[in-house]
């Protein structure tokens, strides 16, 4: 499996990378960890004439806490997410999710930016970002904009990212003190993409759920922010009836297609089970 030929560029700054992207238009493609792109190039599902390697761009690295949010550089690897004590303390769902992605070798290479920019509905981080209300900082030669993760995904491999733009960082509002988070992923084996997965974040005020967000992975052409399901939990005591209603609404929001991981009805069923489990675990982890 040999990829098609291409010219290789290794810019030394984001500006240089953006100039290369502007020059090569749709023939140019950035490569981060390469663990989605290289497999696609081997299958000739992608054949960029110009490959622009982001590896030397220090501007795209680092994990910071500033102005009430966490900012994670696009080139931060999944391994670095797992190792980050700051993220574990402030937003533990990121580590939990990263540990469910692929295997150690893939996680040393694969980046957070690549995972969320890729647009494959099987990627796990996009739903987590939707659940957390995160946004993506993107830049082209003429400036920067910020796109909410909930508005970013348009279809399988179609996103709001322009072909002259680079995603520079992910910005996550600092989760409120005491928020409980959980990511539940059903897969056939280690290293597999989700058959169905759900990200849940919720807060409790006394015995009452004061905030909740639910998002789904690999249950449609894009990650799905299950807004109605989320709202079904708010104001409840997370009693059986409220959770059952959230599960029902999440199943309604899911739009899976049949593939080797199973028929659509099965996946829709599994989606509900993942939501139920993730709500239960997020609740255990939340402090009232």
């Amino acid at each position, binding site marked *: *499996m040999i990829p098609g030929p291409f010219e290789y560029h290794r810019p030394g700054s984001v500006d240089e990378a953006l100039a290369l992207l502007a020059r090569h238009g749709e023939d140019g493609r950035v490569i981060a960890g*390469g663990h989605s792109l290289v*497999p696609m190039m081997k299958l000739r599902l992608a054949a960029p004439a110009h490959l622009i*390697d982001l590896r030397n761009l220090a501007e795209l690295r680092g994990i910071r806490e500033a102005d009430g949010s966490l900012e994670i550089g696009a080139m931060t690897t999944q391994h670095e997410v797992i190792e980050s004590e700051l993220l574990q303390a402030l937003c533990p769902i990121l580590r939990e999710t990263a540990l469910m992605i692929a295997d*150690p*070798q*893939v996680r*040393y*290479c694969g980046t957070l930016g690549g995972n969320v920019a890729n647009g494959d509905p099987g990627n796990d981080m996009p739903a987590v970002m939707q659940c957390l209300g995160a946004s993506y900082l993107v830049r082209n030669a003429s400036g920067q904009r910020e796109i909410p993760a909930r508005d970013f995904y348009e279809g399988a491999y179609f996103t709001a990212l322009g072909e002259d733009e680079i995603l520079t960082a992910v910005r996550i509002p600092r989760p409120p003190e005491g928020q409980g988070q959980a990511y539940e992923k059903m897969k056939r084996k280690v290293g597999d993409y989700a058959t169905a997965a759900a990200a849940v974040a919720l807060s409790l005020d006394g015995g009452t759920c004061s905030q909740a967000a639910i998002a789904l992975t690999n249950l449609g052409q894009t990650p799905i922010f299950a807004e109605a399901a989320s709202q079904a939990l708010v104001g409840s005591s997370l009693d059986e009836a409220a959770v059952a209603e959230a599960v029902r609404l999440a199943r309604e929001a899911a739009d899976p297609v049949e593939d080797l991981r199973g028929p659509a009805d099965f996946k829709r069923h599994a989606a509900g089970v993942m939501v139920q489990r993730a709500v239960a675990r997020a609740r255990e982890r939340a402090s009232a």
Partner: protein
Amino acid sequence: MSKIPVKMTVNGAAVEELVEPRLLLIHFLREKLGITGPHVGCETSHCGACTVDLDGKSVKSCTVFAVQAEGAQITTIEGMAEADGTLSALQEGFMQEHGLQCGFCTPGMITRAHRLLLENPNPTDEEIRWGLSGNLCRCTGYQNIVKAVRYAADKINAGREAAE
């Protein structure tokens, strides 16, 4: 497509070659350098037979272009034994505990386990299994591979304690 120069250090030796940018690291190692320890198994980033150590990370060399390894320090199974040819603790463990049958997965297993033990010198059996979850073996059923890594960890830790 024109070739470009790439430089890296492989098992301690500096190498420099002209390569097509699309050349995968596994093919660079095997075909340009004659380093055939890392194997081509699945070619689809799943089996881990092609695992090498690259700047302190275990990577599947079938999923990296050689040009992406510019300037890197690479260690393959050929670089695991001591300079005098004595087997490393892991190599010895795989031999003593019968951690291989056909041996096809072994270079990747040992190279990955090497990094695992550097990061976590005293892993539980469960941590060994998760740590090797990117490496498939079609023969052993993994039981003896876990034992082999345990053997190596115990041997390395005993040596460290003796030195203290």
